[in-house]
């Protein structure tokens, strides 16, 4: 793009949001080029130039967002919505440059509706701060992702996030009541005021999980929960993953329980990760289970959980072990305990129904450890988000010594990912449960959707005909 045109766009951006809210400073462009996506981190690690945006813009009102999108539309200039920067799939990577619109300054809680148990907030609010505000008023969002310290409410919705207690409270898409969205053309629209209706297809769920490819979310209403009267945990050790999975399945299906947590670590995770972080010396599969709510209800639920686990020879480790895990649940994801460079790692998680999940686990383990044996590939997994019909496996690969060459390292990373993802798809799983698609998995979307993919592309083309919204993501065709 010509220098004059870039300067013209900058003039218009400043006109829309003010001098202080537009940046072209080099450190800012670099800081906004990075999140948890491996590719730019590998590039930075090797001292290579990053793919940077042209502008960083910080709107403060919905009208400003609208103005920004009108400018971008008129110039057919890419727009990448950004808030917490905690994604791992390349969702914010500015592949074609463009404008990064950082939503953090739109962080106001609009209303807590205490009759309906609904909070309405702007999307830039930090997850931890939102939770603290709710707690002060006796509520919880019930959404406790490991990224809570950095992620925002907008990010929860845009990427269909999940949290530690999702088994009880659901994923972000289960909690959302309604949205305000600015379309790529700059129009501000609202979804219906309630999520359950018989008024046609769900516009709400169209935008949920759209990762900035269909518009920018500017206001969100979410279901909230009363703070639980009690929160209890227990822990068990199973001889193998199959028994552990069966215990979880029985809790969720036959007993129809709703524990706040069922977290089952496979042997490798129990032996390596749990030992490293929690200091527990375990030989088998470690499971933490919890319950929260009214005291009598929790006592009964914990009793039934114990009954299920002991029937399957789960060795009870006691509440202290479970509480210890709860108190350190996020430590797994932060230095020095997290898996990061120089190791090459990736979370290739998937979700499937109970009849398929064990096989998927075995197939992926074989695909990674067998398929990338020369690289010393390791596979670890835990099962952490349980539904009445199935469960998500949070499985990861680790290459202890990746190639020095960044291109080779990235190719290897992509190859393992593709192998893992295709194995999931082949055996009844999906590409992703809650980390999203972004750039990294976009190219596999047509494969996942098959004949339904043109429908997805048609929806994108109808809503964003110029393709300015987060281009290069989701596997959509480039239109601008």
């Amino acid at each position, binding site marked *: 793009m010509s220098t004059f045109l870039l300067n013209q766009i900058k003039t218009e951006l400043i006109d829309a949001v003010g001098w202080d809210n537009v*940046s072209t*400073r*080099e*450190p*800012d462009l*670099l*800081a*906004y080029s*990075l999140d*948890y996506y491996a590719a730019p*981190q590998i590039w*930075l690690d090797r*001292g*290579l*130039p*990053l793919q940077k945006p042209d502008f*960083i813009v*910080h709107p403060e009102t919905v009208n400003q967002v609208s103005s920004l999108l009108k400018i971008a539309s008129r110039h057919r200039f890419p727009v990448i919505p950004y808030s*917490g*920067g*905690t994604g791992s799939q390349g969702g914010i990577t500015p592949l074609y440059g463009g404008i990064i619109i*950082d939503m*953090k*300054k739109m*962080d106001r809680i609009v209303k807590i509706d205490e009759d309906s148990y609904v909070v309405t907030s702007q999307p*830039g609010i*930090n997850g*931890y*701060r939102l939770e603290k505000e709710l707690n002060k008023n006796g509520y919880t969002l019930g959404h406790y992702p490991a*990224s809570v*310290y*950095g992620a925002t409410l907008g990010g929860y919705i845009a990427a269909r996030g999940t949290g530690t207690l999702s088994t009880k409270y659901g994923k972000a898409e289960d909690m959302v009541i309604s949205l305000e969205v600015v379309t790529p053309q700059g129009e501000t629209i609202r979804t219906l005021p309630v999520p359950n209706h018989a008024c046609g297809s769900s516009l709400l769920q169209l935008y949920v999980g759209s990762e900035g490819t269909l518009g920018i979310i500017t206001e969100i209403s979410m279901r909230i929960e009363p703070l639980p009267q009690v929160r209890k945990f227990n822990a068990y050790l199973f001889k193998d993953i199959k028994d552990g999975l069966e215990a979880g399945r029985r809790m969720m299906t036959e007993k129809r329980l709703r524990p706040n947590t069922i977290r089952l670590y496979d042997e490798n995770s129990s032996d390596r990760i749990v030992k490293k972080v929690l200091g527990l010396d375990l030989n088998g599969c470690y499971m933490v289970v919890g319950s929260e709510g009214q005291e009598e209800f929790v006592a009964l639920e914990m009793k039934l959980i114990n009954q299920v686990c002991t029937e399957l020879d789960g060795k009870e480790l006691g509440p202290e072990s479970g509480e210890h895990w709860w108190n350190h649940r*996020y*430590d797994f994801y*932060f*230095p*020095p*305990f*997290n898996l*990061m*460079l120089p190791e090459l790692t990736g979370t290739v998680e998937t979700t499937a129904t109970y009849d398929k999940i064990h096989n998927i686990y075995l197939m992926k383990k074989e695909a990674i450890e067998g398929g990338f044996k020369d690289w010393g590939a390791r596979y670890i997994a835990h099962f952490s988000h349980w539904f009445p019909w199935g469960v998500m496996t949070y499985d990861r690969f680790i290459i202890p010594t990746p190639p020095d060459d960044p291109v080779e390292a990235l190719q290897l990373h992509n190859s393992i990912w593709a192998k893992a993802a295709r194995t999931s798809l082949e055996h009844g799983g999906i590409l992703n449960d809650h980390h999203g698609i972004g750039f990294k998995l976009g190219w596999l979307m047509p494969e996942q959707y098959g004949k339904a993919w043109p429908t997805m592309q048609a929806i994108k083309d109808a809503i964003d005909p110029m393709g300015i919204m987060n281009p290069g993501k989701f596997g959509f065709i480039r239109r601008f």
Partner: protein
Amino acid sequence: MFLNDEERSETIWACRFCMMCQVADRVGEVVMNESYTPRGRGAIICALEKGLLKWDEEIADIMFTTLNDGRLQKWCVGNYDHEELIIDTREKLFQKGLLPERIRQLFLEEKRKTFNHEPLISMIKKSGITINKSSEILIYIGYNPTLENYNTIAKFANILNFANIQFKILFEEPISGHDYYQGGDFESASIASKKIAETIQNENVSKVIVLEADCYRMFTTRTKRFGGNIAGISFEHFIVTLNNLLEKKLIRVTKPYDGLTVTYQDPCMLARYCGLTVDPRKILTTIGTKLIEMDPSGKTAFCCGSGGLLPIHQPDIAIEIARKRCREAFETRAEYLVTACFGCHKMLSVGLEKENNPDSPKISHIIDLVAESIELKKTV
């Protein structure tokens, strides 16, 4: 200097991959720009080392727009010392001649002068308080007090007199060098450390009671490492002195507050770096106040906004941080916001004024509260 090469590399690695302490960082909360978050700074420092960014004024602005209050390390599961990484990076900026203008001016001013406490000493003497030049105890003031501070310091001197503790104050008091350390001018920090240590040694004192929290941290954790000879001298923060006097009943509470509600601002340098969180709370209980803690408090308390030379480099951001802390004080509904550091006192006074909240607590230095409760006037 305070991180070796391995620690520095590990800290950069950890910070660039981690957003855990993002909510512990008030600067990021106010500025709302990734470059001003701990993770952003980690990535920027990494990029500087890899030659992907140039050392320039923009980098200096980012590295000086921080509080360096120890809260990030306290929050960190891996105990990585982000604050020391920033000071280390500031040192590199100093070496390259890239200090922000206001910081450069501050250092020039500090090099030209020592603190002249003659008016303070004169005022104390006029109040009938005895200063004993041959005492083995020295009170280190640590900055240029305002007239309001004179009264508070005089009350502390009076308390010591009341407890029959002899002390002296330097007419010409060299600086501790804490600002230089924070600003990355380690050479000047070293010169200042040696000078203050030599001055104290020449006074033949065995104990120094320190009024300012940052100076106390400097003396107890940095002066020796910067080459100051402080062998044989013990340093005590005044908050410990006060609590000891009350515990040993060398001063007695004759006019307790009878449940006056107060909240207390922990100075970062005192609570996090020196672990002094118990003594002020004991004092507040002893004098009869009812303490209502701010959220957060103690070792995880938020900074008042005066850390890391922020009020010098970015005063507006510092004030915004002070206002946020004041709002946390409002939430306690306490009648008084109590400070134990003149820096916090000044910053929070500005915050309260800017907030202009009719329900705002009154602000009081802990010395003033204690002095009132033991009815010092009768003894002077």
